[in-house]
Every structure is written in structure tokens, then in C-alpha cells.
């Protein structure tokens, strides 16, 4: 029987949103246009137009060992070209940001290939070959996974995910990499590790509160979906825990 992913339990809107983001057969809604060059600027790994630095020669030019796995797995474009591995890292506000660290990791694992995600409380990093990264980053930035005000692209000094929002609705960022203009547009004035950009990169307007609460993937009892109300979700976690506990006894059955 072929494995059929369930994308997690739960009867609530939050659970449904989580499943939608994870499920690669569901198209993520595009919310904004950001050019390829602008993505490269925010990432800060190479200058726009510069060649991709490489970690090894293209696979076609080097002797590959006789390896059955290599025959099964098709390399990504970045791996084929020998790109170095670089990253994008996000901070997601607990005030109803659309995506959150573990959710990001699960979503990326279902949707992208050749990635190495890392999941913490205040940030989530994904690393992969550079040209793959730029392609994935575009999707992560342009779609409903990002809100211009409550999602931050932050390589270092990520502090902010759990803080109250600033009075203009922006998540706190000590380095103020992105700023909300008087025209209501959020612009990155520094790249993800805080180096000033030669020109600002616009990523559009913040999404409105109603949209965020309808699409968020975090349970929240203050104005959102209380975790307690999704009994199926709670029962699922309890069941996982109980089974793991039982497995500690190495049952024979």
C-alpha cells in the first residue's frame, strides 16, 4: 500500500491551514511580486549578476563513484552545478504570522528537494545549494507563507518573534532591516544579516489582521483559535507520547 501523507491531525482552522501549507498538491497563494534580483539582495550571499561560487566542479565534469543511491536520486540544479550551500532564515511573530518554525520545516520538506532545515523557537533556517535556495526563497517570500510585517528575514539577531508588535504593526527587529513606509509598503533596507543595501527592496503591504487570523498556523487563545478547542489535536499528541512511553519498555507485541 502506498504511503499517503495526512499532513497532521486536528479539526480546527489552524490545523487545516497547516495541512494546506504542507501539502504540495495545494498551490500556495501568491501575495506579492519580488524580482529575482531583489531576492538575491535580501539574501546577501552574492551580488546580483555575479556567478555562483562553487564548492566542487559540476557533477558532469567530475568522476562519480559507482553508487546506487546516486543513480536513484536526481541531483538538484544547484548540486549539478556544484554550488556552495547557503541559507535563508526567518523569524515569525507569534502574533498570527502565517507560518511558524516547525510548520516551515515540515512545509519545506514536503515541497522542496535537497534542503537542510533547522528549527528553533525564534527562527527557522533552511540551507541548500545556492541556485536552489534562490528559487525556494522566491516561493517563501512571494506566497502566503510570509507577511511583510510579521515575518522577518533575519540571518542574525533574530530577537522579536515573541515580543509585542510595534505600534505600526511591525515585528520588533533590533536591526530594523525592514521598515514600513508612509505609503504602507514594507521595504528591506538591510540584507538578512543586517548589512545596508544600496537600494531598498519593497516586499509589499502587510496583510490585514483578519486575513492573518484566518490563515495563521499558530494556535492562540487571544483572538485566534485556542489550542484547547482542537480536541483531536490534543488527543493526537497525547497518543504519540503514550506510545513512545510504552515503547520505552520494548514491548514484544
Amino acid at each position, binding site marked *: 500500500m502506498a504511503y499517503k501523507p495526512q499532513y497532521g491531525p486536528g479539526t480546527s482552522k489552524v490545523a487545516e491551514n497547516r495541512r494546506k501549507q504542507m501539502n504540495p498538491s495545494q498551490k500556495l497563494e501568491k501575495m506579492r511580486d519580488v524580482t529575482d534580483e531583489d531576492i538575491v539582495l535580501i539574501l546577501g550571499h552574492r551580488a546580483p549578476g555575479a556567478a555562483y561560487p562553487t564548492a566542487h566542479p559540476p557533477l558532469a565534469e567530475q568522476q562519480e563513484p559507482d553508487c546506487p543511491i546516486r543513480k536513484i536520486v536526481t541531483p538538484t540544479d544547484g548540486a549539478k552545478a556544484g554550488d556552495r550551500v547557503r541559507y535563508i532564515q526567518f523569524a515569525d511573530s507569534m502574533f498570527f504570522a502565517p507560518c511558524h518554525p516547525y510548520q516551515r520545516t515540515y512545509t519545506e520538506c514536503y515541497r522542496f528537494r535537497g534542503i537542510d532545515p533547522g528549527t528553533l523557537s525564534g527562527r527557522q533556517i533552511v540551507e541548500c545549494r545556492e541556485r536552489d535556495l534562490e528559487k525556494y526563497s522566491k516561493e517563501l517570500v512571494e506566497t502566503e507563507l510570509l507577511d511583510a510585517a510579521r515575518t522577518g528575514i533575519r540571518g542574525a539577531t533574530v*530577537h522579536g*518573534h515573541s515580543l509585542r508588535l510595534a505600534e505600526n504593526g511591525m515585528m520588533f527587529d533590533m536591526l530594523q532591516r525592514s521598515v514600513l513606509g508612509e505609503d504602507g509598503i514594507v521595504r528591506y533596507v538591510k540584507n538578512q544579516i543586517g548589512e545596508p543595501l544600496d537600494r531598498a527592496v519593497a516586499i509589499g503591504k502587510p496583510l490585514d489582521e483578519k486575513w492573518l487570523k484566518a490563515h495563521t498556523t499558530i494556535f492562540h*487563545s487571544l483572538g485566534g483559535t485556542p*489550542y484547547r478547542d482542537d480536541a483531536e*489535536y490534543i488527543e493526537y499528541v*497525547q497518543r504519540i507520547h*503514550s506510545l513512545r512511553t510504552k515503547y520505552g*519498555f520494548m514491548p514484544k507485541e
Partner: protein
Amino acid sequence: MAKIERTQKLFLQALKEKFQGQDVQSETAEYYKFNGYHQSPRKEEFVKASRAVEMDRGISMYNPVRCHLGGIPLGQRQLMTYEVSGTGVFVEGDDLHFVNNSAMQQMWDDIRRTVIVNMDLAHQTLQKRLGKEVTPETINEYLHVLNHAMPGAAVVQEHMVETHPGLVDDCYVKVFTGDQELADDLEPQFVLDVEKLFPAKQAEALSAAVGKSLWQAIHIPTTVSRTCDGGTTSRWSAMQIGMSFIAAYRMCAGEAAVADLSYAAKHAGVIQMASHLPARRARGPNEPGGIMFGVFSDIIQANRKYPNDPAKASLEVVGAGTMLFDQIWLGSYMSGGVGFTQYATAAYTDNILDEFTYYGMDYAKDKYKVDWKNPSPGDKVKPTQEIVNDLATEVTLNAMEQYEQYPTMMEDHFGGSQRAGVIAAASGLTTSITTGNSNAGLNAWYLSMLLHKDGWSRLGFFGYDLQDQCGSANSLSMVSDRGLMGELRGPNYPNYAMNVGHQGEYAAIVGSSHYGRGDAFCYSPLVKVCFADPSLKFDFAEPRREFAKGAIREFMPAGERSLIIPAR
């Protein structure tokens, strides 16, 4: 699970003090206008002190403007003070780093410089092998000699160097026994009187457990254990014990019987506070990584002072444990730097963990009729998986909801590791106190972690992925290599040496299972009695209060050096 009403909110006072003039339930705040580090008097003091140091030594030092993130100093948000939980004392966060807090240093000094040594073995050698008479009078004389010798004075040989008493005034030896008749015959200055130090029920249990044996509670000089290490403690003490027996009982200094006394003092009769660690961690005995959680819960004495409040007793263990295991052990022995302090202090500041834990107490009383204010084994609930799940789930959900409803509290515990440790600790403490079973408490901890992770789609640092997600499976099994009683676990237990915000709480979960039952001790009656000593520099019944005193610079530690350095 079903939410219960609790209106007290122990954290409110702290939040109102920290965020003065602000609505603590507001979701927005002002930022970027606080003038950086200048808002903190302590950091201003650091800058001033650093300038003086630089002028003196000619090497640059503390410079938050130039060196923090290329010119953006700390303090773009409000830098908060912290209330040390249960004390009402507000302190600067910086003053809770152990380098800046003499009470924290002394707590660890007092543990590391302590060994407990049995006297019965030595007395048998004296009586049976040497035919010496051992009486309360000879024991008193021996203790006079030992209290002369232990700090570093000569008792047998001529023309010896000795230590300055003013530098080693924290060093002494007392004795204790379960034989009250013998205790009454010894000079009170030397006796840890179990009947006087403990509530009657605890004293009775401790006396029965110690029995007629006589034990020495030895504290070598702080300066010695600092200059050397924890492994020195038993060696220093054994040398002085051997010499004192020779002097007090007029033995031949070289006779073979001395070897028996030495062996008893160095090996056979010694209780170390911590076992030595394997080579990859490379520490001797009496270093933090080897302290079993059961022993640590006995070192902390809050259940002696507050026998009817097992929650408070446990919270004191959390405070002491996170300080020692997170800030000193993981934060400095194993890692280095300052980050661990920020995580650890979350568990003993602003009464947040206190509130979550007392919610658990109210829930246990409401649902399971556990009279937690009158600890006894009689009303403990059988720790079935269903009940553990129920307790952990309710306490976790309540805690998450409190963070959600008080955004300033979320901002206070701005890191997921802080919140995860605190929420899981409240779940574990509640379950331990309710069931009287430490492993049930640990199991509750791990369910809390899983619930937390799924609810907010985040947990703590990377390592939480391993430690807290494999924990369910190792928390109840007792099969070798698959689990262990909580009392016998310690900071070096597999997978426990990874993350801040765990070990102190684990220790408290272990202790709370006994405090909830009204037990006199968790693992060792000897350790319990030893640290009940009012002469110790650090008061182990009130660790959080002591830390607060250290933070406001009112704690007087040992380790004096001004006698031997130039006057300033």
C-alpha cells in the same frame, strides 16, 4: 482536562513593575527609543568600570557601542529588571550572572567543598586494633583538634607552615547522628542536632535512617576548593582527619593503623556530593556534572523550612538547580559565555513558574482531591498514563494561555527555551507532587514539550529536538540503558547534557515527588542533615532569597583575600 478558575496571577506584580505605565495585556509597544544600554544603570556602571580598567592596563575592553553588532548596542527594546521569585526583590538581569553574584558562587562553593565522612570505621580501628577508649569526651577532644587542623593548621609536626584563620574562616567540621543520647553528650558547637533542625516528623525519619552511626559534615576552605577542584575536598579533609586522629588519640604517626584511618577517610567512609565523570567530561568527584538529582534535592532545604508547601520547596530547587546546572555547569564548565544565564533565570524570576505550578496544585486539589498543603503518601494519585497525561496537558494548556493573554509575559520570556522549560517544569512538578512519583513527573515533562511544540509550532533550541522528543521513551522504563529512577539520574544522564533549562527542573521534579509525600529526604538522609547547618555561608533553605541578596550586593561570601593583597 478542564480549565479551572484561578484569579491570583502571581506574576502580575512583577509585570506591572517591569512594564511601568503600560497595559500588561496590550499587544503593542514602543521600541527603538530607549537610548540603548544607557537605560540600564548596571550597564552604565560597566562602561565606567571598563574605562578605568582600560586606563590602568592599556588594553581595550567593554564597549557596547562599537562592538555590539557593528554599532547597534543592546537596548533597542526596554531592558527589564527581574523580580527574583518569591522574594519581592527586583534586580538587574546582569546581577544574576554568577560572576556578578557572590551568593551564587558561594552556593556552588559550599557544595563543592563538602564531604561527609563516617566515624564508626575509625572508631572501630581505634578501639579494636589499638585498644583506645572512645568516649564522648575523646570525640569532643578530637573535634577540637580537627577544627584546628581542617582549615590548614599543624597538629603533629614541628616547624610547619599554616594557613591564616582569617582566610579560611568558612572551614569547619560538625557531626551528626541518629543517636540523640550521644548527640546530647557532645559539645553543642560541634553538633548538627537533627531534633532541633527539622520538623518532628522529618527528624524522626532522619534519625531512624542515620541510626547510631556518627558522621562528620566537613567543609574545607572555599579558597582551597576554588584553587584546586572538587576532587580536592575529600583529599584535603582526609589528610586533616588522619592527622587529627593521630594527635587526639596519641597514635604513632607512622604505624600501619593510620592507613586504616586514611582508607576510611578517603574511600570507605566518604560520601561525596557528586560522583566523578567519564573521561570525555573529565571531572573529578564533587563537580556539578556528577550530582544526582536525588542528592541535589536533599542539598536544598526548603522542604525542611516549608514542609507544608511542596510547591515552594520544589521551586527553590528549580532556582538553585538552574543556577548550578545551567549557569555554572552547562553555561561555563561545558560551554562558556553568558547566554545560559538568560535562559536559566526565567525559571526563578517574576513568579511565572510559581504561578503555573500553583495552578497545577489547585487543579490537583480540585480534580483529584490531593491535599497538597498537608503532604502525605496517603492521598497520592496512582500515576497511570491517563492521569499523567491529564495533569500535564491541563498545566501546559493553562501556561500557554497565560503567555498568550499577557503579551508582556511572553516578552519577558522572549525565548522558546525559557517558555518550554517553565511550562514543562510546572507540568512535571504538578505530576510529581500529585502522584509522589518522580518518573511520572519526568514523563509529564515530556508530554508538555510535545504539546507545546505542536501548539505553537516551535519549542526551544535545536537540541530540544532530541532530548525532549526521545524523552517520553526513557522516562518510565527502568531497564538498564533505557531508563533510570529520577533520583539516580543527573546532569550526565544520556541526552541530559545537551540543553539549558532542563537539569535544574529535573532535579526539582525528583525532589517534589518526595516533598509531596512529606518525606524527610529524597535520596540521602546524610546529605539532608549536612546541609541543614545554619553555620554554612549559604542558606540552602532559601536559595532564591540568597541569590537576590547576592544581586543587590548584600550577601557576604567566603574566600576572603583582602588580608593578603595590597589595601585599595
